[in-house]
Protein backbone atom coordinates (compact mmCIF):
# COMPACT_ATOMS: atom_id res chain seq x y z
CA UNK A 1 0.00 0.00 0.00
CA UNK A 2 1.14 3.47 -0.84
CA UNK A 3 1.70 5.22 2.49
CA UNK A 4 2.71 8.75 3.34
CA UNK A 5 2.70 10.81 6.43
CA UNK A 6 1.78 14.43 7.10
CA UNK A 7 2.88 16.18 10.26
CA UNK A 8 0.71 18.89 11.75
CA UNK A 9 2.24 20.42 14.87
CA UNK A 10 3.36 17.37 16.80
CA UNK A 11 0.90 14.98 15.26
CA UNK A 12 1.68 12.55 12.44
CA UNK A 13 -1.21 11.58 10.22
CA UNK A 14 -0.78 8.56 7.99
CA UNK A 15 -2.08 9.04 4.48
CA UNK A 16 -2.92 5.92 2.52
CA UNK A 17 -3.33 5.77 -1.26
CA UNK A 18 -3.12 9.51 -2.01
CA UNK A 19 -3.49 8.79 -5.71
CA UNK A 20 -6.85 7.08 -5.28
CA UNK A 21 -9.57 8.79 -7.31
CA UNK A 22 -12.43 9.90 -5.08
CA UNK A 23 -14.22 11.77 -7.86
CA UNK A 24 -13.56 11.72 -11.54
CA UNK A 25 -10.24 13.54 -11.92
CA UNK A 26 -9.94 14.34 -8.21
CA UNK A 27 -7.57 12.30 -6.06
CA UNK A 28 -7.52 11.84 -2.33
CA UNK A 29 -4.44 14.09 -2.26
CA UNK A 30 -6.49 16.83 -3.99
CA UNK A 31 -9.26 16.37 -1.44
CA UNK A 32 -6.82 16.59 1.48
CA UNK A 33 -5.37 19.72 -0.08
CA UNK A 34 -8.89 21.20 -0.14
CA UNK A 35 -9.51 20.26 3.51
CA UNK A 36 -6.19 21.81 4.56
CA UNK A 37 -6.88 25.06 2.74
CA UNK A 38 -10.49 25.35 3.86
CA UNK A 39 -9.96 24.17 7.45
CA UNK A 40 -9.79 27.63 9.01
CA UNK A 41 -13.21 28.45 7.55
CA UNK A 42 -14.80 25.04 8.03
CA UNK A 43 -13.63 24.03 11.52
CA UNK A 44 -15.58 26.72 13.43
CA UNK A 45 -18.80 25.08 12.20
CA UNK A 46 -17.70 21.64 13.43
CA UNK A 47 -16.69 22.97 16.84
CA UNK A 48 -18.25 20.95 19.70
CA UNK A 49 -20.68 19.29 17.28
CA UNK A 50 -20.94 15.49 17.43
CA UNK A 51 -20.08 14.50 13.89
CA UNK A 52 -21.78 12.18 11.44
CA UNK A 53 -19.73 11.55 8.30
CA UNK A 54 -20.53 9.73 5.08
CA UNK A 55 -17.55 7.71 3.93
CA UNK A 56 -16.86 6.68 0.36
CA UNK A 57 -13.86 4.34 0.67
CA UNK A 58 -13.89 3.61 -3.07
CA UNK A 59 -14.83 7.08 -4.26
CA UNK A 60 -18.26 8.47 -5.11
CA UNK A 61 -19.00 5.62 -7.51
CA UNK A 62 -18.42 3.01 -4.83
CA UNK A 63 -20.44 2.14 -1.80
CA UNK A 64 -20.98 4.73 0.89
CA UNK A 65 -21.89 4.43 4.55
CA UNK A 66 -22.81 6.66 7.46
CA UNK A 67 -20.49 6.73 10.43
CA UNK A 68 -21.62 8.21 13.74
CA UNK A 69 -19.52 6.08 16.03
CA UNK A 70 -15.81 6.65 16.38
CA UNK A 71 -14.07 3.50 15.11
CA UNK A 72 -12.01 1.51 17.62
CA UNK A 73 -8.85 1.96 15.60
CA UNK A 74 -8.96 5.77 15.68
CA UNK A 75 -5.63 7.25 16.77
CA UNK A 76 -5.26 8.84 20.20
CA UNK A 77 -5.57 12.45 18.98
CA UNK A 78 -9.16 11.97 17.83
CA UNK A 79 -11.43 13.63 20.41
CA UNK A 80 -14.65 11.78 21.22
CA UNK A 81 -17.66 12.41 23.46
CA UNK A 82 -20.55 10.28 24.65
CA UNK A 83 -23.56 11.55 22.71
CA UNK A 84 -27.00 9.97 23.00
CA UNK A 85 -26.30 6.27 22.44
CA UNK A 86 -22.87 6.42 20.87
CA UNK A 87 -19.31 7.69 21.02
CA UNK A 88 -19.11 10.59 18.61
CA UNK A 89 -16.10 12.26 17.06
CA UNK A 90 -15.62 15.98 17.66
CA UNK A 91 -13.60 17.43 14.81
CA UNK A 92 -12.05 20.59 16.18
CA UNK A 93 -8.61 20.61 14.56
CA UNK A 94 -6.78 20.02 11.32
CA UNK A 95 -5.26 16.62 12.22
CA UNK A 96 -8.74 15.21 12.91
CA UNK A 97 -10.06 16.72 9.70
CA UNK A 98 -7.23 15.18 7.69
CA UNK A 99 -7.52 11.82 9.40
CA UNK A 100 -11.22 11.77 8.48
CA UNK A 101 -10.34 12.93 4.97
CA UNK A 102 -7.92 10.04 4.62
CA UNK A 103 -10.76 7.75 5.65
CA UNK A 104 -12.62 9.12 2.63
CA UNK A 105 -15.15 10.85 4.86
CA UNK A 106 -16.55 13.22 2.23
CA UNK A 107 -19.72 14.55 3.82
CA UNK A 108 -19.67 16.16 7.27
CA UNK A 109 -23.08 16.41 8.95
CA UNK A 110 -23.64 18.15 12.29
CA UNK A 111 -26.61 18.57 14.66
CA UNK A 112 -27.99 22.02 15.54
CA UNK A 113 -26.83 21.84 19.14
CA UNK A 114 -23.34 21.31 20.57
CA UNK A 115 -22.75 18.03 22.39
CA UNK A 116 -22.95 19.65 25.83
CA UNK A 117 -26.48 20.89 25.32
CA UNK A 118 -29.88 19.94 23.99
CA UNK A 119 -30.48 23.54 22.98
CA UNK A 120 -29.99 24.51 19.35
CA UNK A 121 -27.32 27.12 18.64
CA UNK A 122 -28.78 27.78 15.20
CA UNK A 123 -31.85 27.40 13.07
CA UNK A 124 -31.46 26.16 9.51
CA UNK A 125 -34.14 26.42 6.85
CA UNK A 126 -33.52 23.63 4.34
CA UNK A 127 -34.93 24.66 0.97
CA UNK A 128 -34.84 21.48 -1.03
CA UNK A 129 -36.68 21.71 -4.37
CA UNK A 130 -38.27 18.58 -5.86
CA UNK A 131 -35.63 18.43 -8.61
CA UNK A 132 -32.53 20.24 -9.86
CA UNK A 133 -34.63 21.91 -12.56
CA UNK A 134 -36.80 23.41 -9.82
CA UNK A 135 -33.81 25.12 -8.16
CA UNK A 136 -35.46 28.44 -9.04
CA UNK A 137 -38.07 27.61 -6.38
CA UNK A 138 -35.34 27.43 -3.73
CA UNK A 139 -33.99 30.77 -4.96
CA UNK A 140 -37.47 32.25 -4.76
CA UNK A 141 -38.04 30.90 -1.24
CA UNK A 142 -34.63 32.13 -0.09
CA UNK A 143 -35.36 35.63 -1.42
CA UNK A 144 -38.66 35.73 0.41
CA UNK A 145 -37.19 34.42 3.64
CA UNK A 146 -34.47 37.06 3.36
CA UNK A 147 -37.05 39.83 3.07
CA UNK A 148 -38.92 38.38 6.03
CA UNK A 149 -35.79 38.07 8.18
CA UNK A 150 -34.87 41.66 7.38
CA UNK A 151 -38.30 42.77 8.50
CA UNK A 152 -37.75 40.94 11.78
CA UNK A 153 -34.19 42.27 12.26
CA UNK A 154 -32.83 38.74 12.09
CA UNK A 155 -29.52 38.05 10.35
CA UNK A 156 -29.50 34.92 8.24
CA UNK A 157 -26.67 33.31 6.29
CA UNK A 158 -27.07 31.61 2.96
CA UNK A 159 -25.38 28.53 1.58
CA UNK A 160 -25.80 26.12 -1.30
CA UNK A 161 -26.55 22.64 -0.05
CA UNK A 162 -24.09 21.18 -2.57
CA UNK A 163 -26.91 19.13 -4.03
CA UNK A 164 -29.96 20.82 -5.49
CA UNK A 165 -31.05 23.22 -2.79
CA UNK A 166 -30.27 26.17 -0.57
CA UNK A 167 -30.00 26.47 3.18
CA UNK A 168 -30.42 29.48 5.41
CA UNK A 169 -28.60 29.48 8.75
CA UNK A 170 -29.77 31.66 11.62
CA UNK A 171 -27.26 31.64 14.49
CA UNK A 172 -28.81 31.85 17.97
CA UNK A 173 -27.26 32.64 21.34
CA UNK A 174 -25.87 29.44 22.88
CA UNK A 175 -27.84 27.57 25.53
CA UNK A 176 -30.77 29.92 25.40
CA UNK A 177 -33.62 28.45 23.41
CA UNK A 178 -35.25 25.04 23.19
CA UNK A 179 -36.37 23.18 20.09
CA UNK A 180 -39.97 23.75 21.18
CA UNK A 181 -39.29 27.48 21.10
CA UNK A 182 -37.46 27.53 17.76
CA UNK A 183 -40.31 25.53 16.31
CA UNK A 184 -42.76 28.30 17.14
CA UNK A 185 -40.63 30.60 14.99
CA UNK A 186 -39.88 28.21 12.10
CA UNK A 187 -43.50 27.14 11.93
CA UNK A 188 -44.63 30.75 11.75
CA UNK A 189 -42.17 31.61 8.97
CA UNK A 190 -43.07 28.47 7.02
CA UNK A 191 -46.79 29.11 7.26
CA UNK A 192 -46.29 32.72 6.30
CA UNK A 193 -44.39 31.77 3.14
CA UNK A 194 -47.00 29.21 2.20
CA UNK A 195 -49.82 31.63 2.75
CA UNK A 196 -48.11 34.23 0.57
CA UNK A 197 -47.29 31.71 -2.19
CA UNK A 198 -49.57 28.71 -1.95
CA UNK A 199 -48.81 27.71 -5.54
CA UNK A 200 -45.03 27.55 -4.99
CA UNK A 201 -44.46 26.42 -1.42
CA UNK A 202 -46.00 23.87 0.87
CA UNK A 203 -45.67 22.50 4.38
CA UNK A 204 -47.30 19.24 3.28
CA UNK A 205 -45.33 16.31 4.68
CA UNK A 206 -46.60 13.76 2.17
CA UNK A 207 -44.60 13.90 -1.05
CA UNK A 208 -47.45 12.93 -3.32
CA UNK A 209 -49.51 15.85 -2.04
CA UNK A 210 -46.82 18.43 -2.74
CA UNK A 211 -47.50 18.57 -6.47
CA UNK A 212 -44.13 19.95 -7.50
CA UNK A 213 -44.14 22.67 -4.88
CA UNK A 214 -41.11 23.37 -2.69
CA UNK A 215 -41.43 21.75 0.70
CA UNK A 216 -40.57 24.13 3.52
CA UNK A 217 -39.31 21.79 6.15
CA UNK A 218 -39.58 23.13 9.66
CA UNK A 219 -40.03 19.70 11.22
CA UNK A 220 -36.42 18.61 10.60
CA UNK A 221 -35.15 21.21 13.01
CA UNK A 222 -35.03 18.93 16.02
CA UNK A 223 -32.77 17.09 18.41
CA UNK A 224 -30.84 14.27 16.77
CA UNK A 225 -31.33 15.66 13.24
CA UNK A 226 -28.32 16.91 11.33
CA UNK A 227 -27.46 19.24 8.48
CA UNK A 228 -24.53 19.34 6.05
CA UNK A 229 -21.78 21.50 7.55
CA UNK A 230 -20.71 24.67 5.74
CA UNK A 231 -17.78 23.94 3.38
CA UNK A 232 -18.30 20.17 3.47
CA UNK A 233 -18.04 18.51 0.07
CA UNK A 234 -20.91 16.30 -1.13
CA UNK A 235 -20.56 12.73 -2.31
CA UNK A 236 -22.11 13.55 -5.67
CA UNK A 237 -20.54 13.11 -9.10
CA UNK A 238 -19.43 16.72 -9.38
CA UNK A 239 -17.84 16.98 -5.96
CA UNK A 240 -19.83 20.11 -5.19
CA UNK A 241 -19.40 21.99 -1.94
CA UNK A 242 -22.02 23.09 0.57
CA UNK A 243 -20.63 26.57 0.14
CA UNK A 244 -21.63 29.74 1.99
CA UNK A 245 -22.56 32.49 -0.45
CA UNK A 246 -23.36 36.17 -0.17
CA UNK A 247 -26.97 37.32 -0.32
CA UNK A 248 -25.90 39.41 -3.32
CA UNK A 249 -25.14 36.17 -5.17
CA UNK A 250 -28.75 35.08 -4.78
CA UNK A 251 -29.89 35.89 -8.30
CA UNK A 252 -31.74 34.06 -11.04
CA UNK A 253 -28.33 33.21 -12.55
CA UNK A 254 -27.25 31.29 -9.45
CA UNK A 255 -26.71 27.62 -10.29
CA UNK A 256 -26.51 24.80 -7.80
CA UNK A 257 -23.67 23.32 -9.88
CA UNK A 258 -21.17 26.13 -9.92
CA UNK A 259 -19.07 25.53 -6.79
CA UNK A 260 -16.48 22.78 -7.00
CA UNK A 261 -13.70 22.55 -4.42
CA UNK A 262 -11.36 24.42 -6.73
CA UNK A 263 -13.82 27.28 -7.26
CA UNK A 264 -14.46 27.51 -3.53
CA UNK A 265 -10.73 27.81 -2.78
CA UNK A 266 -10.53 30.68 -5.25
CA UNK A 267 -13.21 32.66 -3.46
CA UNK A 268 -11.82 35.41 -1.32
CA UNK A 269 -14.51 36.30 1.15
CA UNK A 270 -16.08 34.09 3.78
CA UNK A 271 -19.77 35.02 3.70
CA UNK A 272 -20.24 33.42 7.15
CA UNK A 273 -17.60 35.62 8.71
CA UNK A 274 -19.93 37.53 11.03
CA UNK A 275 -21.81 34.39 12.16
CA UNK A 276 -20.66 34.63 15.80
CA UNK A 277 -21.36 38.35 15.92
CA UNK A 278 -24.90 37.88 14.63
CA UNK A 279 -25.54 35.13 17.17
CA UNK A 280 -25.61 37.51 20.11
CA UNK A 281 -27.58 40.41 18.63
CA UNK A 282 -30.56 38.55 17.15
CA UNK A 283 -33.82 39.87 18.72
CA UNK A 284 -35.05 36.28 18.83
CA UNK A 285 -36.36 36.43 22.39
CA UNK A 286 -38.59 39.40 21.54
CA UNK A 287 -39.98 37.67 18.49
CA UNK A 288 -40.59 34.55 20.49
CA UNK A 289 -42.37 36.42 23.28
CA UNK A 290 -44.60 38.06 20.73
CA UNK A 291 -45.41 34.79 18.99
CA UNK A 292 -46.14 33.04 22.29
CA UNK A 293 -48.48 35.89 23.17
CA UNK A 294 -50.34 35.36 19.89
CA UNK A 295 -50.47 31.64 20.52
CA UNK A 296 -52.01 32.19 23.94
CA UNK A 297 -54.67 34.34 22.41
CA UNK A 298 -55.27 31.60 19.90
CA UNK A 299 -54.32 33.75 16.94
CA UNK A 300 -51.60 31.45 15.69
Amino acid at each position, binding site marked *: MDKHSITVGEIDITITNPEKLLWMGITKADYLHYLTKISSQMLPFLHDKPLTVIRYPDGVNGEAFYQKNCPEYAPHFIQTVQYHDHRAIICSNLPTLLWLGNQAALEFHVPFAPYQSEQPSEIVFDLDPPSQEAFYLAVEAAKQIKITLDRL*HITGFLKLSGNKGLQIHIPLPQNTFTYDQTKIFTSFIAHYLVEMNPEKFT*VERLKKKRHGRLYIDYVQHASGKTIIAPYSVRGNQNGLVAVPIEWSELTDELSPLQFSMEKVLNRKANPFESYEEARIVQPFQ*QILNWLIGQEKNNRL
Partner: protein
Amino acid sequence: MERVSEMHTMWKGAISFGLVNIPVKLYAATEDKDIKMRYLHKECHTPIQYEKRCPTCDRPLESEDIVRGYEYEDGKFVIMEKDEIEALAHEKNKSVEIVDFVELSDIDPIYFNRSYFIGPNEQGTKPYMLLKQAMEESGRIGLAKITIRSKEHLAAVRVYDKGLILETMYFPDEVREIGNVPDIPEELEVSDKEKKLAKQLIEQLTTKFDPSQYKDERREAMMALIESKISGNEIKVVEEKPKKNVADLMDALQASLDTSPKAPPKKKKAAPRKKKVAK
Protein backbone atom coordinates in the same frame (compact mmCIF):
# COMPACT_ATOMS: atom_id res chain seq x y z
CA MET B 1 -39.64 12.18 21.00
CA GLU B 2 -38.16 12.21 24.50
CA ARG B 3 -36.50 15.42 25.51
CA VAL B 4 -34.32 16.16 28.48
CA SER B 5 -36.20 18.83 30.32
CA GLU B 6 -34.38 21.12 32.61
CA MET B 7 -35.32 21.22 36.27
CA HIS B 8 -37.60 24.00 37.11
CA THR B 9 -37.51 25.62 40.57
CA MET B 10 -40.93 25.16 42.19
CA TRP B 11 -40.23 26.87 45.46
CA LYS B 12 -37.45 28.82 47.10
CA GLY B 13 -36.93 29.26 50.82
CA ALA B 14 -35.14 27.73 53.75
CA ILE B 15 -35.24 24.64 55.93
CA SER B 16 -34.48 25.26 59.57
CA PHE B 17 -33.89 22.95 62.47
CA GLY B 18 -32.63 24.22 65.75
CA LEU B 19 -30.29 27.06 64.93
CA VAL B 20 -29.31 25.72 61.52
CA ASN B 21 -30.81 27.44 58.53
CA ILE B 22 -30.45 25.94 55.04
CA PRO B 23 -31.38 28.02 51.97
CA VAL B 24 -32.95 25.58 49.48
CA LYS B 25 -34.86 25.25 46.25
CA LEU B 26 -37.44 22.60 45.52
CA TYR B 27 -37.82 20.80 42.21
CA ALA B 28 -40.63 18.44 41.20
CA ALA B 29 -39.29 14.90 41.62
CA THR B 30 -41.96 13.07 39.68
CA GLU B 31 -44.07 13.73 36.61
CA ASP B 32 -47.22 12.24 35.22
CA LYS B 33 -46.78 10.98 31.70
CA ASP B 34 -50.25 11.12 30.35
CA ILE B 35 -50.72 11.34 26.61
CA LYS B 36 -52.31 14.70 26.10
CA MET B 37 -55.29 14.77 23.81
CA ARG B 38 -56.93 17.91 22.61
CA TYR B 39 -60.61 18.33 22.03
CA LEU B 40 -61.46 19.20 18.43
CA HIS B 41 -64.60 20.24 16.68
CA LYS B 42 -65.73 17.03 14.98
CA GLU B 43 -66.51 18.73 11.69
CA CYS B 44 -63.45 20.86 10.95
CA HIS B 45 -60.95 19.49 13.53
CA THR B 46 -60.19 22.88 14.98
CA PRO B 47 -59.14 22.77 18.63
CA ILE B 48 -62.12 24.05 20.58
CA GLN B 49 -61.93 27.13 22.71
CA TYR B 50 -63.17 27.54 26.22
CA GLU B 51 -64.78 30.79 27.04
CA LYS B 52 -65.50 32.20 30.47
CA ARG B 53 -68.97 33.71 30.45
CA CYS B 54 -71.27 35.28 32.95
CA PRO B 55 -74.77 33.85 32.40
CA THR B 56 -76.39 36.79 34.24
CA CYS B 57 -74.75 39.57 32.29
CA ASP B 58 -74.59 37.39 29.18
CA ARG B 59 -71.10 38.35 28.16
CA PRO B 60 -67.59 36.83 28.00
CA LEU B 61 -65.25 37.71 30.86
CA GLU B 62 -61.59 38.63 31.01
CA SER B 63 -59.41 37.42 33.86
CA GLU B 64 -59.58 40.80 35.58
CA ASP B 65 -63.38 40.44 35.77
CA ILE B 66 -63.06 37.31 37.90
CA VAL B 67 -62.74 37.03 41.69
CA ARG B 68 -62.76 34.06 44.05
CA GLY B 69 -65.62 33.39 46.44
CA TYR B 70 -66.23 30.83 49.16
CA GLU B 71 -69.71 29.27 49.07
CA TYR B 72 -70.60 29.15 52.76
CA GLU B 73 -74.24 28.35 52.10
CA ASP B 74 -75.99 27.34 48.91
CA GLY B 75 -75.68 30.32 46.54
CA LYS B 76 -74.14 32.59 49.17
CA PHE B 77 -70.53 33.66 48.83
CA VAL B 78 -67.95 35.58 50.74
CA ILE B 79 -65.47 37.18 48.38
CA MET B 80 -61.81 36.40 49.07
CA GLU B 81 -59.56 39.01 47.51
CA LYS B 82 -56.34 37.82 45.97
CA ASP B 83 -54.12 39.84 48.29
CA GLU B 84 -56.02 38.58 51.32
CA ILE B 85 -55.30 35.00 50.31
CA GLU B 86 -51.69 35.81 49.55
CA ALA B 87 -51.23 37.64 52.84
CA LEU B 88 -52.24 34.50 54.74
CA ALA B 89 -49.94 32.31 52.75
CA HIS B 90 -47.04 34.68 52.78
CA GLU B 91 -46.16 34.70 56.43
CA LYS B 92 -44.76 31.20 56.53
CA ASN B 93 -44.01 30.92 52.88
CA LYS B 94 -40.31 31.14 53.11
CA SER B 95 -39.43 28.64 55.75
CA VAL B 96 -39.77 24.97 56.47
CA GLU B 97 -39.18 24.35 60.13
CA ILE B 98 -38.42 20.79 61.06
CA VAL B 99 -40.21 20.23 64.33
CA ASP B 100 -39.84 16.50 64.85
CA PHE B 101 -37.62 13.68 63.71
CA VAL B 102 -39.31 10.30 63.31
CA GLU B 103 -38.76 6.88 61.73
CA LEU B 104 -39.85 6.64 58.10
CA SER B 105 -41.55 3.32 58.81
CA ASP B 106 -43.81 5.08 61.33
CA ILE B 107 -45.57 6.89 58.50
CA ASP B 108 -48.15 5.04 56.49
CA PRO B 109 -47.70 5.63 52.71
CA ILE B 110 -51.30 6.92 52.56
CA TYR B 111 -50.02 10.23 53.93
CA PHE B 112 -47.61 10.89 51.08
CA ASN B 113 -48.74 13.26 48.38
CA ARG B 114 -46.03 14.69 46.09
CA SER B 115 -42.24 14.45 46.06
CA TYR B 116 -39.85 17.33 45.55
CA PHE B 117 -36.09 17.15 45.25
CA ILE B 118 -34.40 19.59 47.59
CA GLY B 119 -31.37 21.40 46.20
CA PRO B 120 -29.16 23.73 48.22
CA ASN B 121 -29.46 27.40 47.33
CA GLU B 122 -26.58 29.88 47.59
CA GLN B 123 -24.40 29.22 50.60
CA GLY B 124 -26.62 26.34 51.58
CA THR B 125 -24.29 23.54 50.53
CA LYS B 126 -22.60 22.97 53.85
CA PRO B 127 -25.65 22.97 56.17
CA TYR B 128 -27.41 20.88 53.49
CA MET B 129 -24.74 18.18 53.72
CA LEU B 130 -24.78 18.45 57.51
CA LEU B 131 -28.51 17.74 57.68
CA LYS B 132 -28.20 14.98 55.11
CA GLN B 133 -25.39 13.16 56.89
CA ALA B 134 -26.93 13.58 60.32
CA MET B 135 -30.24 12.12 59.14
CA GLU B 136 -28.45 9.36 57.29
CA GLU B 137 -26.53 8.31 60.36
CA SER B 138 -29.45 8.55 62.74
CA GLY B 139 -31.82 6.86 60.31
CA ARG B 140 -34.50 9.46 61.03
CA ILE B 141 -36.51 11.76 58.83
CA GLY B 142 -37.67 15.28 59.58
CA LEU B 143 -41.31 16.38 59.86
CA ALA B 144 -42.14 19.94 58.91
CA LYS B 145 -44.80 22.26 57.56
CA ILE B 146 -44.52 24.02 54.23
CA THR B 147 -46.74 26.29 52.18
CA ILE B 148 -46.64 25.66 48.44
CA ARG B 149 -48.97 27.60 46.15
CA SER B 150 -51.04 28.95 49.02
CA LYS B 151 -51.72 25.56 50.49
CA GLU B 152 -50.13 24.43 53.69
CA HIS B 153 -48.84 20.88 53.80
CA LEU B 154 -47.32 18.59 56.31
CA ALA B 155 -44.01 17.40 54.89
CA ALA B 156 -41.35 14.77 55.41
CA VAL B 157 -37.73 15.65 54.69
CA ARG B 158 -35.54 12.62 54.10
CA VAL B 159 -32.33 11.40 52.54
CA TYR B 160 -32.71 10.19 48.97
CA ASP B 161 -29.77 8.90 46.97
CA LYS B 162 -27.11 11.62 47.15
CA GLY B 163 -29.39 14.41 48.31
CA LEU B 164 -32.53 15.30 50.19
CA ILE B 165 -36.13 14.97 49.21
CA LEU B 166 -39.29 16.52 50.58
CA GLU B 167 -42.58 14.66 50.47
CA THR B 168 -45.66 16.72 51.01
CA MET B 169 -48.12 14.86 53.19
CA TYR B 170 -51.81 15.01 53.88
CA PHE B 171 -52.94 16.29 57.22
CA PRO B 172 -54.73 13.61 59.28
CA ASP B 173 -58.11 15.21 58.62
CA GLU B 174 -57.47 14.90 54.87
CA VAL B 175 -57.10 11.12 55.12
CA ARG B 176 -60.43 9.37 55.08
CA GLU B 177 -61.57 6.64 57.47
CA ILE B 178 -61.43 3.09 56.14
CA GLY B 179 -64.26 2.39 58.59
CA ASN B 180 -66.57 4.18 56.16
CA VAL B 181 -65.99 1.54 53.47
CA PRO B 182 -68.97 -0.85 53.41
CA ASP B 183 -68.72 -4.62 53.79
CA ILE B 184 -65.23 -4.98 55.24
CA PRO B 185 -65.57 -7.93 57.64
CA GLU B 186 -64.47 -7.55 61.22
CA GLU B 187 -62.97 -10.95 61.97
CA LEU B 188 -63.85 -13.97 59.86
CA GLU B 189 -62.64 -17.50 60.43
CA VAL B 190 -60.36 -18.87 57.69
CA SER B 191 -58.94 -22.36 57.89
CA ASP B 192 -55.25 -22.88 58.47
CA LYS B 193 -55.07 -24.88 55.25
CA GLU B 194 -56.44 -22.02 53.16
CA LYS B 195 -54.13 -19.58 54.81
CA LYS B 196 -51.16 -21.86 54.22
CA LEU B 197 -51.97 -22.11 50.49
CA ALA B 198 -52.34 -18.37 50.16
CA LYS B 199 -49.06 -17.81 51.95
CA GLN B 200 -47.32 -20.29 49.68
CA LEU B 201 -48.59 -18.42 46.68
CA ILE B 202 -47.27 -15.17 48.10
CA GLU B 203 -43.96 -16.88 48.73
CA GLN B 204 -43.76 -17.97 45.09
CA LEU B 205 -44.53 -14.54 43.73
CA THR B 206 -42.19 -12.75 46.08
CA THR B 207 -39.40 -10.89 44.35
CA LYS B 208 -37.22 -7.87 44.91
CA PHE B 209 -38.87 -4.58 44.01
CA ASP B 210 -37.51 -3.49 40.64
CA PRO B 211 -39.44 -0.48 39.33
CA SER B 212 -37.97 -0.90 35.83
CA GLN B 213 -40.07 -4.06 35.52
CA TYR B 214 -43.28 -2.10 35.35
CA LYS B 215 -44.45 -0.04 32.42
CA ASP B 216 -47.55 1.89 31.53
CA GLU B 217 -48.79 -0.56 28.95
CA ARG B 218 -51.91 1.37 28.13
CA ARG B 219 -49.90 4.46 27.32
CA GLU B 220 -47.50 2.50 25.14
CA ALA B 221 -50.37 0.90 23.25
CA MET B 222 -51.99 4.30 22.77
CA MET B 223 -48.72 5.81 21.51
CA ALA B 224 -48.29 2.91 19.08
CA LEU B 225 -51.80 3.46 17.78
CA ILE B 226 -51.15 7.19 17.42
CA GLU B 227 -47.91 6.54 15.56
CA SER B 228 -49.53 4.07 13.20
CA LYS B 229 -52.23 6.62 12.46
CA ILE B 230 -49.64 9.30 11.72
CA SER B 231 -47.65 7.09 9.35
CA GLY B 232 -50.83 5.66 7.85
CA ASN B 233 -51.80 9.04 6.57
CA GLU B 234 -54.80 9.14 8.84
CA ILE B 235 -53.93 12.56 10.10
CA LYS B 236 -56.44 15.16 11.14
CA VAL B 237 -55.03 18.54 10.32
CA VAL B 238 -56.63 21.84 10.88
CA GLU B 239 -56.65 23.16 7.35
CA GLU B 240 -53.23 24.06 6.10
CA LYS B 241 -54.07 27.72 6.34
CA PRO B 242 -53.72 29.09 9.85
CA LYS B 243 -56.76 30.61 11.45
CA LYS B 244 -55.81 34.18 11.11
CA ASN B 245 -54.15 35.79 8.18
CA VAL B 246 -50.46 35.21 8.82
CA ALA B 247 -49.56 38.21 6.69
CA ASP B 248 -51.38 40.47 9.15
CA LEU B 249 -49.59 38.85 12.02
CA MET B 250 -46.25 39.36 10.27
CA ASP B 251 -47.04 43.06 9.85
CA ALA B 252 -47.96 43.31 13.52
CA LEU B 253 -44.84 41.45 14.60
CA GLN B 254 -42.63 43.68 12.49
CA ALA B 255 -44.31 46.76 13.91
CA SER B 256 -43.70 45.54 17.45
CA LEU B 257 -40.00 45.05 16.68
CA ASP B 258 -39.63 48.33 14.83
CA THR B 259 -41.00 50.32 17.73
CA SER B 260 -39.20 48.35 20.40
CA PRO B 261 -36.23 50.28 21.79
CA LYS B 262 -34.30 47.04 22.21
CA ALA B 263 -34.37 46.16 18.54
CA PRO B 264 -30.92 46.62 17.10
CA PRO B 265 -30.75 48.97 14.10
CA LYS B 266 -31.04 47.23 10.79
CA LYS B 267 -27.60 46.33 9.64
CA LYS B 268 -26.74 47.61 6.24
CA LYS B 269 -25.01 44.48 5.08
CA ALA B 270 -28.24 42.60 5.74
CA ALA B 271 -30.06 44.55 3.05
CA PRO B 272 -31.09 42.38 0.11
CA ARG B 273 -29.52 43.93 -2.94
CA LYS B 274 -26.53 45.52 -1.38
CA LYS B 275 -23.08 44.69 -2.68
CA LYS B 276 -20.51 42.70 -0.74
CA VAL B 277 -19.09 44.47 2.24
CA ALA B 278 -16.55 41.90 3.24
CA LYS B 279 -13.47 41.38 1.17
